[in-house]
């Protein structure tokens, strides 16, 4: 073999840091400690610490396999029509006036990430002028770590935090949040977590959402909802979609990035939907035509399997009911673990207040542990959690909760 060029074109490519949450799982896997616990990556686990393929998913997969009329042909660019409409309906509600007005559309995407990215690319091209990369994008402090990169890689140059988590009181910093809304340049984009805020598990109350909406409307701020946990948070689809539906009823044109990774347990099939709520059908049509162009140069058309499973389930009343039941099973186990963790910490007399464990909602809890305490948890106790103090409640089971509570107790009492 004759080397083509002496120097490689890629000799200057620097080693990138690993994505933290996946590195955590990798480290966990290598750990041989018998009592190790993984409270890192956000995927549901049963009380036996096993992944859970939803019974309704197994049933629908069998139906799909047995249906010899199905093939592997390309989906349309925007995705499977029956999936898109059903997915948007799940977010906006059966009796959504906006859907009846024909001003709601969906773009099937690769998971919630894909939906966010297509939405971000669209906004960068067409929102607030044409190709206005200077429009500020606000993400909560803290937020899901990938939000920043999604909007930055879509071309936005100005990504800023808005106040959200109050570390001192371990709750929502409402006044900071509202202040940021008042001060943000008009037309700024705000990424709002529809429910089960990641990573804090802290959601605004309905009254607080109303205050947020009032300012956003008055100041012409753009609403981009990230909805990755509908049903998973409270166990009720309606309750978890309240904020989205409220904003729609207030007349906002908005985007909702939906993920079916968690609430359908379909993590690796990449099932997501970008719901577009426009002023009217004419606007919607133009918007979707531009979404198509973006999709075409990103992945051409989306994967079929996951959308078929979700589409079939949502469109069949019996399967839909069964799904809601499966979702409630997951949500209830998480709620139980929250109750038990708080009770055990209180019983141990662990310093501090632990009400936030049951006040927070969804998969994650912001424990309030500081980086040193987190390091202690990982290194000394082999309990893996994110440096931010975020734990995945799904990693807790009746079998390990005592050990985890004890570990937290030690971390808080021994490490400052």
């Amino acid at each position, binding site marked *: *073999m004759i080397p*083509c*060029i002496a120097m*490689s*074109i*890629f*000799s200057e*490519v620097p*080693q*990138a*840091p690993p*994505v933290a949450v996946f590195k955590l799982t990798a480290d966990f896997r290598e750990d041989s400690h018998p009592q190790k616990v993984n409270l890192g*990556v956000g*995927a549901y686990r049963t009380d036996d610490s*096993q*992944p859970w*393929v939803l019974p309704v*998913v197994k049933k629908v997969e069998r139906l799909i*396999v047995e249906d010899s009329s199905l*093939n*592997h042909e*390309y989906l349309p660019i925007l995705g499977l029509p029956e999936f898109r409409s059903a997915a948007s309906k799940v977010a906006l509600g059966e009796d959504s006036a906006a859907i009846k007005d024909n001003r709601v559309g969906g773009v099937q*995407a*690769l998971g919630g990430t*894909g939906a966010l990215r297509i939405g971000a690319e669209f906004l960068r091209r*067409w929102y607030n*002028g044409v190709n206005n990369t200077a*429009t500020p994008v606000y993400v909560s402090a803290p937020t899901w770590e*990938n939000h920043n990169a999604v909007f*930055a*890689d879509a071309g936005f140059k100005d990504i800023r935090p808005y106040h959200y988590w109050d570390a001192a009181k371990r709750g929502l910093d409402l006044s900071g949040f509202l*202040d940021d809304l*008042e001060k943000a*340049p*008009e*037309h700024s984009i705000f990424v709002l977590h529809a429910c089960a805020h990641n990573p804090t598990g802290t959601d605004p109350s309905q009254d607080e959402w109303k205050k947020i909406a009032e300012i956003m409307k008055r100041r*012409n701020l*753009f609403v981009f909802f990230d909805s990755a946990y509908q049903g998973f948070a409270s166990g009720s689809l309606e309750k978890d979609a309240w904020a989205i539906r409220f904003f729609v009823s207030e007349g906002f*044109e908005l985007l909702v990035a939906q993920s079916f990774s968690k609430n359908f*347990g379909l993590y*690796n099939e*990449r099932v997501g939907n970008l719901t577009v709520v*426009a*002023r009217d059908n004419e*606007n919607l*049509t*133009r*918007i979707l035509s*531009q979404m*198509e162009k*973006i999709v*075409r*140069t*990103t*992945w*051409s*058309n989306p*994967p*079929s*399997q996951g959308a078929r499973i979700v589409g079939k389930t949502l469109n069949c009343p019996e399967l839909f009911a069964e799904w809601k039941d499966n979702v409630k099973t997951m949500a209830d186990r998480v709620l139980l673990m929250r109750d038990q963790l708080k009770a055990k910490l209180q019983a141990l007399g662990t310093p501090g207040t632990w009400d936030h464990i049951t006040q927070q909602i969804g998969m994650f809890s912001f424990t309030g542990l500081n980086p040193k305490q987190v390091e202690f948890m990982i290194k000394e106790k082999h309990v893996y959690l994110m440096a931010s103090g975020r734990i995945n409640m799904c990693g807790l089971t009746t079998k390990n909760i005592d050990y985890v509570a004890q570990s937290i107790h030690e971390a808080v009492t021994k490490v400052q």
Partner: protein
Amino acid sequence: MALLKSNKVLYCLGNVSPSLGVLSSRNSSWWGGVQMGPPDPILGVTEAFKRDTNPKKMNLGVGAYRDDQGKPYVLNCVRKAEAVIAEKKLDKEYLPIGGLGEFAKACAQLALGADNEVLKSGRNITVQTISGTGSLRIGANFLSRFHGGPRDVYLPKPSWGNHTPIFRDAGMQLKAYRYYDPSTCGFDFKGALEDISKIPEQSVIVLHACAHNPTGVDPRPEQWKEISDLVKKRNLLVFFDMAYQGFASGDIDRDAWAVRHFIEQGHNIVLSQSFAKNMGLYGERVGGFTVVCKDAEEAKRVESQLKILIRPIYSNPPMNGARIATTILNTPELRAMWLEEVHGMANRIIKMREQLVAGLKKEGSSHNWQHVIDQIGMFCFTGLKPEQVERLTKEFSVYMTKDGRISMAGVSSGNVGYLAHGIHAVTK
């Protein structure tokens, strides 16, 4: 509250923000300025076809294989693989960002050959991607971010329509080198060499590994050799697009010959692969992206950066199709079945080419249609002019793209005579 002090608070009136230039009000929309996007030329053909009520209509637009009854074909090896997978009762946990490891390995082996030195030394990084498009886009993004050379990407003229917007959206600039010779409906070898010899050093050159889309015109091996030498001389970065391995000649090794030759000659290529056509896994979105690096250490660095690129697009790829492809490639009986089926698909296409030419002769056409047989793969560049294409569509309900490209997969023994008749009618 601070907001009351602002005199910019307007409730029911329009508000123009001077620096950001947008008109918005309660009654208007954010999206007034959004233009209607043009219909996708290729997929648009299928949409027009669907609306046509002529029972003799033919869809020769989008490149998806059809059997001799004009039906989509789910490969037997795919059905068998699906059954095997269903038995395993696997979970649905996230794949790594770079996808299913076994898939990436099998994918690279298929392209490069299992005993390729590149694989042995671990100096390639291969990631699972969202079929060919996803692979090209990741590659384009990677080059845009890390390639120190010119921003220019040289495409053959013509190339697949989606190449241009993919590279453009990734921030690259597009240029072209001569490729198709309309006077012969064949390869403009001289023109290609002339143009390539002028490409500035370190520019990116896109080469279709086999079954060129849209023309079906491939260089012969001796021509590939000269292209390789010239590209080496010009110090260009080679980006191979291989969407039809196995589908072109029916032989996977033969179709990968150019890719393997270039690597053997020392080009550290980047490569996009698709399993949409050769495994019929279109909607499952199965593909791979490979960077051949200097050594394993560089491959690790490149891998880390690919992950950083992928994560904010879709986090990690879909499992289903990759699982099917891996099962087929790694299970000897299924792999053998697959090779036979891919051979079968390629053969049917070749037969249709022969029958079309025979049909045209029978119709009494005086034109030279040899190129229909010489071209290879799913597509045929008929040489029809736009006006002739329009007539073929309007008068005969034969749907194809304006450039005269037909998808041979849409031709069957049942309609090849009708097609010959129509083509003769508009060209005589």
